[in-house]
């Protein structure tokens, strides 16, 4: 069982009697606590703990370092490995679909992305494919006005596919089309089916998973489920201006292979930054 391997890892460490080994034990525990508190997936945390302990055994502490910093650097490298090579997100013509759970920041991020593309000189249309949330049409319409993007929606239309096909035919020659979808539980097959339907029509170049930095242990499962409906090409972590560390996003990357592209750092439509793995991880490890 998982706990058995965790106990074995920690007991193996504690059974050793040298001062260095006890220190390793202490630091590994400290790292484990930091990861758990940062909402990193529990299984991933256990896996990382094992890797760190293994590498600590096989790699001598560099001359200019000490055992503690050596271990922290190892876990930092392992996390960086999972996050993958940062993807240089270039602003170019694209059809983008935003997906995610309830209230994560999709509609706001749609506006932030629109502003990003407009700053780079592209024409953008925001497509209101959320047919379920009360006031969704008005929210995206107002955001479109704020950023100077075009807006397409069909008020009261319940079929999101009609909205998307309508938007694509009217705006067929536009540079950037951003499709905002309703929040959903990806473990619900019917809700997932709607994503498949929209993706089939829109054939998006980018499918971005929007994740709240405070998401807990459900992140990996949800990301995996969304990925089944439409291949996730990028992740945006929102609300990093709070106290949450965003550890859940790491499992989303691990499960989908998609890189984190941007982070949301506030409610205003300018509050979008390129993802910087080093800064993200140092904040995560506290």
């Amino acid at each position, binding site marked *: 069982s998982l706990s058995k391997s965790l106990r074995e890892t920690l007991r193996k460490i504690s059974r050793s009697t040298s001062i260095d080994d006890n220190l390793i034990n202490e630091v590994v525990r400290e790292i484990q606590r930091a990861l758990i508190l940062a*909402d990193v997936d529990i299984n991933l945390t256990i896996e990382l703990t094992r890797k760190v302990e293994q590498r600590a055994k096989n790699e001598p502490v560099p001359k200019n370092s000490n055992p503690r910093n050596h271990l922290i650097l190892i876990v930092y490298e392992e996390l960086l490995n999972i996050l993958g090579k940062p993807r240089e997100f270039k602003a170019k013509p694209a059809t983008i679909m935003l997906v995610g759970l*309830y*209230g994560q920041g999709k509609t706001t991020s749609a506006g932030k992305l629109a502003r990003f593309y407009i700053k780079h000189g592209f024409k953008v249309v925001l497509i209101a494919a959320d047919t379920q949330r009360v*006031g969704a049409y008005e929210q995206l319409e107002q955001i479109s006005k704020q950023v100077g993007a075009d807006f397409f929606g069909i008020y009261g239309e319940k079929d999101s596919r009609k909205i998307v096909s309508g938007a694509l035919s009217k705006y067929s020659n536009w540079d950037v089309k951003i499709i905002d979808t309703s929040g959903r*539980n990806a473990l619900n097959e019917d809700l997932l089916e709607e994503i498949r339907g929209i993706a089939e029509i829109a054939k998006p170049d980018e499918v971005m998973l929007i994740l*709240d930095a405070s998401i807990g242990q459900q992140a990996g499962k949800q990301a995996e489920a969304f990925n089944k409906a439409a291949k996730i090409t990028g992740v945006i972590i929102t*609300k990093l*201006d709070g*106290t949450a560390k965003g550890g*859940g996003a790491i499992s989303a990357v691990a499960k989908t292979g998609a890189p984190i592209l941007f982070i949301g750092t506030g409610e205003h439509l300018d509050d979008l930054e390129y993802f910087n793995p080093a800064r993200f991880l140092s904040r995560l490890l506290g």
Partner: protein
Amino acid sequence: LGKPIGDLDEFTDDLKISLLEADVSLATAEKLSDNLKGKLKGKRIKFGEDRDKVLKEAVKSTITDMLKIKIPNLYSMASSKSPFIILLVGMNGTGKTTTAAKLAYEFKKRDHYVVIAAADTFRAGAIDQIFIHGEKLGVKVVKHQAGSDPASVAFDAVSHASKYPRSVVIIDTAGRMQTNKNLLEEMKKIKRVSKPDFTILTVDALSGNDALNQAKMFDEAVGIDAIVVTKIDADTKGGSILSLIYELKKPVIFVGNGQTYEDLMEFDPNWYIKNIID
């Protein structure tokens, strides 16, 4: 006499992992394990008893103890004065507006005159959102222009409701980060001006360890009377509920179990324990 319960480490380690996987905070998971060990100290497995069953029952009773808190009955409180004023606060996207609509539905059902204050004057589409809910519910929504002072919207709603008997005011506010000093000040002002009888914090069941931070900081800033944990229907175990009640000592009065008006469930500890343990 039976045999001793034996070494509990393997069991508590397994338990800790499943609690953490259920979004119980680290500190709460550790305390639970300590409380459990205390409860089982010196316990013996009687002849014919199943050790696993004994352990499982001990976990259930430990959690029951940790969930013990007086749960205010909001519906009966609302009948005690008019207008009865409820303030909703919480981090961005946690379900305040939806919960406000659900509460409006429940109070209208109970023959109260309900007034909603559209006090989120900042976010795009916020006033429209709560206004449409009001129309669907047949409930009065007091609103001002976008960008206006939220405290004055709340004040107007209370003044209006004061003219009617058995009235309930539900103040929907803008989402805010517990780290934003200006927004915390704005929230304090809304409370100062509207003088609510009950302040509710909404927390997303999908959030992890941050839920406790949010709750602590909101409570420190403005004082909360109870918590509503939303989106519990999104396949979550809702472990943060245990942490919120045990660490913060605040009651969870409702859980949001979906997006329709009827999806506001009174919090039931027994239902919750079944959910988190199985």
